[in-house]
């Protein structure tokens, strides 16, 4: 399942006015790259809840 999903109505134009990234063509790698380069903000994306899995066994 994709980690990054743009909020409703949010589109990105990272390569100029004629470019368009929305939920139909974004990937997690792209989202992280665009955030890192300052062309998208974390707030552009829906909150991602990462399900923590409980570790079993000896953790020493």
């Amino acid at each position, binding site marked *: 399942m994709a980690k990054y999903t743009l909020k409703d109505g949010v589109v990105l134009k990272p*390569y100029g006015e*004629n470019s*368009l*990234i929305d939920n139909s063509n*974004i*990937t997690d*790698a*792209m989202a992280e790259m665009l955030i890192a*380069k300052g062309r998208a903000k974390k707030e552009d994306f829906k909150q991602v809840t990462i399900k923590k899995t409980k570790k079993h066994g000896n953790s020493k």
Partner: protein
Amino acid sequence: MAIVSNSVDIRGVAAEPIIEEILFQNNTIAKGLVTFEDDIKAETIFTEVSAEAQMQAFVSGIPTSDGSLNTWDTVVTPAKVMFYQEFDPETLRFSRYKRSMAPGAWNNFSTEFERVVIGGQYAPQVSLSAERNFWLGATAATKAAIAALTPGGTNATISTEEQAMAAASLGAAAQFDGILTKFLYNDSRASGVAGLGERNRVVGTTIDSSNIKAEYDKIYEAIPSVVLQGMEKPLFYAPYSHKQLIATFNNNVANYKDAFLPMGDSYTFNGLEIVFVPIPENVVISALKSHLFWCTDLVSDVSRLKLEKIAANREDMFLKSIMTETSHVANQKFNVLYVG
């Protein structure tokens, strides 16, 4: 589509100049920025060759064949495309355009409308569309193939930036693959199997007036040295906005001024010419002009419009332009693609 007209019935006078949208010129054709391979009615073959000579130890007996001799053909078939629009000149009979209609009820065609709207706006839009598709076109199939590649950190893989640029800027259900698409995905190789383009990739950043020289340095350094040895020098193909970024960079007194040298409308970086074409922001190509091909039947087709009545018994009209077009990138491993 009919004429979309919000005109008023003319009773008094109309200001003479008609304000037109400002359009870019199709510099790719007007300035001959790539190589035009015309007279291609259906298909043409581009042949590339390479060879490797391998020195080996002398033996008196049976020698072992070593090295390689390669030649491969790429068949390029331009797509036949058209622009077509219908309109009814009667729509304009009460507007300012009636002043340029010849006397007589048979005559309802305005020469002013033809000059300003058709010749001044629609025809250049046809040419610009042909140019945009040449640089940015991508068929749905190729776009999907690029999206399916696995990004990685080496030149043998696609970068996340390249993939994002392709997703964001290429295509819109084009009829053929344009230059940027061909840089990223093609079958122009010895095996003939379609795959990632063999360009030299440079992963860049967001280009602005403060870092433009540093980013062009990266592109310059990625050009294979052998390319700079030849008589023909590579060009930088840059987005239009770089003209402004270069001017702003040069206006900063602290910057070294000889890197970017504007002379009139000509710009150079480290002595190599920069030309401005409709490619996305944060993307620059460096290639020999002889490596980039605009393949077509007749180059002047982009400026040929047929304007006639739809039928002899009708008064509404049509505009039609037909052309064949596709792109081809040769000698891929000597070209550089910067994507930030």
